[in-house]
């Protein structure tokens, strides 16, 4: 049976791991390769590395880091952050990434999804969507939640799928960093709408929150950062608890 995936996310700035609280107030939490290997040994099913460097130098450091991750990690990993062209995606594929996530650049230029998917395959493109609820509607945001776009969550997710996205990574900017849980009804609606996997991100504070989004929320995977980085919920404890709750999990 296909297992639900647990995915730690590592934010990288200038080659170092950081975690944003509401994407502001960054704080370093470790070496990306070592932390990734540690998570893989603990039973993480995949890893996501997001480059939040703002400079060219930072970007180049990230590509070198991707090469080192690929050499050292024995589970799949996705990389993202600032991917704005097919060449950016190709460079990261060449460095050894299994998948890339595109976010703001795809909102600006949806053709990017089609172009990357047709060149490197649907499985290679994860479309990340950050959205906030405004007057009962889920509005898609860009630039780490700082800007509203004209798009709406469900129609955008569907368009991304039609353009060749292999997975959707949805973060509720209303829940991210709060540790109050995920908007499960929204996730369930998204999962029912789509024929590709949905990864839930943003808001996990307890094991129950993750169990809920994987069952009630019908998500295929749960992604989190700080609860793992700060050891609040160790991955083996989480996976054992989910397994006990009859959720299909790889132990």
């Amino acid at each position, binding site marked *: *049976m*296909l*297992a639900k*995936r647990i995915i730690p996310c590592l934010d990288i700035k200038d080659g170092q791991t950081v975690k944003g609280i509401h994407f502001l107030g960054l704080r370093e939490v470790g070496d990306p390769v070592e932390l990734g290997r540690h998570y*893989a040994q603990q039973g993480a*099913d995949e890893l996501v590395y997001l480059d939040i460097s703002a400079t060219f130098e930072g970007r180049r450091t990230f590509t070198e880091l991707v090469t080192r991750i*690929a*050499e*050292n990690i*024995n*589970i*799949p990993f996705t990389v993202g952050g600032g991917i704005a062209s097919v060449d950016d995606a190709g460079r990261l*594929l*060449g460095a*050894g990434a*299994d998948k890339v996530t595109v976010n703001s650049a795809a909102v600006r230029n949806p053709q990017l999804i089609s172009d990357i998917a047709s060149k*490197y*395959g*649907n*499985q*290679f493109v994860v479309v990340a969507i950050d959205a906030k609820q405004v007057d009962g509607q889920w509005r898609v945001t860009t630039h780490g939640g700082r800007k509203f776009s004209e798009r709406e969550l469900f129609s955008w997710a569907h368009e991304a799928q039609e353009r060749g996205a*292999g*997975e959707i990574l949805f973060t509720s900017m209303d829940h991210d960093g709060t540790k109050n849980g995920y908007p499960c009804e929204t996730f369930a609606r998204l999962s029912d709408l*789509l*024929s*590709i*996997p949905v990864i839930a991100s943003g808001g996990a504070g307890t094991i129950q929150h993750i169990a809920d989004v994987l069952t009630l929320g019908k998500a*295929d*995977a749960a992604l989190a950062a700080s609860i793992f980085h700060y050891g609040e919920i160790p991955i083996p404890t989480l996976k054992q608890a989910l397994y006990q709750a009859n959720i299909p999990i*790889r132990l």
Partner: protein
Amino acid sequence: MIAVIDYDTGNLRSVANALGRLGAEYTITSSPAEIRSADRVLLPGVGEASSAMAKLRERGLIEVIRSLTQPVLGICIGVQLLCRHSEENDTECLGIFDNEVRKFDLPGLKVPHMGWNSLTHLRTPLFDGIEEGAYVYYVHSFAPTLNDDTIAITEYGYPFSAAIAKDNFFGTQFHPEKSASVGERLLQNFLKL
């Protein structure tokens, strides 16, 4: 020496990295002479069946692969190419295995089949030390059917060949190079065959 067949498809690097982590010596090559003289041959890759077959043909590797007598392991698209025929763009494949490669097609089934799924009905020394129910990593939309050469089964909507073996040829639909310790054990087993 292990020859990793280079036919201009993605994912060679991942397989090479996995061999590197095991301390194995390998070369990434499309040279028929190097491939014929290798102790082991790996046919990895991701991509689409008809263009992958076209690339093997361009490099003059169709008959080279068919005539190999050392242990050969096809991974993902690699195992599909070793099969008889793929539904993906109606492609005639190498025909080492008699299996047909079919697209996942069931209402409500998410495609691609992506993530960790479990193995059952394990046979042959390729799975030495790997337990029934072990999880391995998959990313694919097409899969080989079952037949007498099936040496491991996974279910996704319905059962398919997770791995196939015939004579000196082996193939896995999953990615051992991304399957943590289970995948490492399988690659080690292959190197010891």
